[in-house]
Structure formats: C-alpha cells, structure tokens
C-alpha cells in the first residue's frame, strides 16, 4: 500500500468509527452512558487528522523519503508548539 492509500484508509477508519460510536451515543439518549459514549466518539474523530499525519510520517520513513520526513517532522514540532501555546493561553 502506498502513502496516499494508507493515509486515506486511516482517515476513513477513524471517521467511520467515530461517527458510528456517536450515533450509538445519541440513540442511548438520556442515559448515564450517553455522555461517555459521545465523549469517546468525538475524541476518536478529533484525533483522526493527527493520526493521518502520523501514518503519512511512518510511511515516508519506510519509503526512506528523507526530504519529506524532515518536512513532516517540522510540521509535527510546529503542531506540538501550537498545542503548548494553546494550553498556555487558555
């Protein structure tokens, strides 16, 4: 499987899983479990784009595409700094 297929598949699995769990959560409306189920579904959905980047990153390393490994490393560092700044300024 090439990089695009892997990244695409990761996003598809992440969003499908997240959405299915959210639907289950909304069906179990007004029950204690609802909030926990929704919480899990939304967490999976939110983390899917990041998981996509990580899968692309691993695939680039496997392909020994060092130039793009460097570029993606830089992106991940910038994202971590961004997150740190967001938490500090909240």
């Amino acid at each position, binding site marked *: 499987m090439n*990089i*695009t*297929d892997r*990244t*695409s*598949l990761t*996003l*598809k699995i*992440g*969003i499908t899983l*997240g*959405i299915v769990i*959210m*639907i289950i*959560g*909304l069906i179990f*409306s007004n029950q204690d479990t609802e*909030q926990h189920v*929704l*919480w899990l*579904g*939304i*967490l999976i*959905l*939110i*983390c*899917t*784009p*990041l998981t*996509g*980047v990580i899968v*692309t990153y691993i695939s680039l390393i496997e392909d020994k595409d060092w130039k*793009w490994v460097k*570029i*993606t490393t*830089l*992106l991940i560092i*910038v*994202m971590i*700094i*961004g*997150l740190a*700044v*967001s*938490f500090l*300024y*909240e």
Partner: protein
Amino acid sequence: MDPILIFGLLMIGIGASIIGTIFGLGGGIIFIPVLTILFGLTANEAVAVSLVGVIATSTGAAAVYIKKGLSNVRLGLMMEITTSIGAICGAVMATYLANWVLLCIFSIMLIYSAIHMIFRAERITEPAEEDGEFTFSYVDEKENKERRYKIKNIKSGLTICTAAGMISSMTGVGGGVIKVPLMNIHMQVPIKIASATSSYMIGITAFSGAIVYFIHGDLLLEYAAAIAIGAYIGSTIGTRIIRHLNADSIRKYFSIVLLIVSIMILFKAGGYI
C-alpha cells in the same frame, strides 16, 4: 436531547459540509453564526462545536480526495507548517490592530480573489515530460483524462500562507477561503486540487483548536455529535457532486462563495454577527 433539535443540527451539518467539501472550506463560517443565532449557543460554545463539525467535514472529504489523488498530501503538509507558524504568532501577538481593521483587510483580500477568479482563466503550467519534484498529476473525472500540473511560486506561496494563518487566528475566520485562491491563483494549482488539498489541511488545523476545548470540557457533546454526523453525510454528498463539476464552474461558484463570505466578514467587522 430533543429529536427536533438533533434533526436541525444534522441538517445544518449536512448543508455546511456539502459547501465546505466542494470548495475546500471547513464550514465554520456557516456553523458559528447559525449556532449562535438560531440555537442560542454562546460564541465560545459555538466555536468548539464548529471545530468538531469542521474536522468531520475535512476528514470525510479528505479520505475520498486523497485516495483519488485530488488532495495533494505533500503540498498540504508543507503549507500546514507555515500556516501553523502564522497561527501561533497570531495567537501569541497582542492584537496591535483593532479586530475590525483585520476583518476589513481579510474581506478586501477575498473580494480581490473573487474578482480575479471571475475575470481571469485558470493558469496551469503543463510540466515538461521529465518529472520535476513539484510535478503532480490527477484524473479529472468530469473530463475523464489525466491532467498534470507543476506547482509554481512555492516560497512566496508559503510566506503568504504564514500571513493567512496569522490573520486567520487573530480574527477567528478559517483559512480555507484564503488558501484555495492562494494555491489556485498564485501557485497555479488546479482548482480541484486546491480545494481538495485545503479540505485535507483544515482538519489538521482544526485538531489543535478542538482538542484544547475538548480537554478543558468546554464542548457540548450532543451538539458536536449531531453536527459531526451531519457533516460526515454532507461530505459524502459533496465528494460525489464535485465529480460532475468542471474547473470553470467550481471557480465561478467559488468566487460567489468568496463574495458572500466577504460580506459576512464585513458584517462581523461591524459587530452585527
């Protein structure tokens, strides 16, 4: 949660996501005013719910676009770096300019892009036979043929992206509306690739915002879930619609969307939204 409320949120999610998926926008420009005005959410709650909707739109669209070669992952990753740097600078810097001034600048940039897209034809550089590093190809399903393109003006494009990220984080208006014309007009990326690549990038950008709200517990879970489910359905519809559109019509409709968004931003600048 009231089923009518869920139904309303689903419909908003579907509608915003169809538009977002076709044009490479997140949908925040639709979600936020609708959630605050129609559903009575506070601005903070609306932003948090909207970010989840934006991620669902982006991820649903990108899963399909990447597979078809429409989202250019490499270009997206590269532009995401400078956009994020711009966004961080924007968040850290005290706003020296009044918000309405920034919003007006944003609006003028969009009006300029819209007029450019209406009156000038798309300029794509057909690459030479030998593969250069920034030469890519995709299959245009409408025309049923392979189209090749070479990305131009990469350095200046990335610099403008930093500025776009900065203005975007200072004003709270998403970056898609500026990244798509930037890629299409300045970097000579075909409109279908530009919008699909923007769709892919938006999810990565929104992740950082959404996770902060999520961890702080500021997210209305039922609202976010209903909007996300709607957005996922909308993205499935949007990725089907784009197959039947040619580049010229996407550019034409996109410029109309840009003009509408620029008017909405002017309303926001005036404090009406």
